[in-house]
């Protein structure tokens, strides 16, 4: 599913709202999450998951082709931990597929 497909799905549920409004809404939500991460905040969405920024220490990496050592600087990476409800839902559907198979 892409962002435009997500907007189309929302359009079916909200026939009174324009595609433009829905598109701007999805962007507003994603921008708010990104903005929070940029200012070092976490975003906790019960049932869905938590977005946070994790620190990675500097390390000595290796070019896999040449074997040459390279210094990899410390960096911050966006991280998502799925919530319990989402994890359970993913596996409930897997179990159903198995039963059906």
């Amino acid at each position, binding site marked *: *599913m892409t*962002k435009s497909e997500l907007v189309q799905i929302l359009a079916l549920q909200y026939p009174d709202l324009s595609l433009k409004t829905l598109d701007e809404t999805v962007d507003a939500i994603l921008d708010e999450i990104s903005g929070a991460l940029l200012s*070092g905040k976490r975003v*906790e969405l019960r049932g869905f998951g938590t977005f946070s920024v994790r620190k990675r220490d500097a390390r000595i990496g290796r070019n896999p082709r040449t074997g040459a050592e390279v210094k990899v600087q410390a*960096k911050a990476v*966006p991280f998502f931990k799925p919530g319990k409800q989402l994890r359970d839902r993913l596996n409930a559907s897997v179990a159903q597929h198995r039963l059906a198979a």
Partner: protein
Amino acid sequence: MHSMNTITRVELINTVYSKIGLSKADSGRLVESTLESVCKALEGGENVKLSAFGSFNIRDKNQRVGRNPKTGIEVPITPRRVVTFRASPNLKQAVNSGAGAAA
């Protein structure tokens, strides 16, 4: 950990309310529907790609042998489906160059 360093649905709803100009009630429903649509797609085994933000990818894990770290007893870890998030290149870069790196 909670407190000012964490934002939740409330802030997302307020953002939609103030930026888009929908009612608080509609803003709340839309935030919920958006999250629910993403969950539904993932539940159906579909990856979700949100350009300029990142993608949620489904991965199927095989059964493997795990170990209770406290007792050392081996336990089988059942096959399962997990979701991983890959931030878009611009979000990754922004998190590194922004104030986030210092926090």
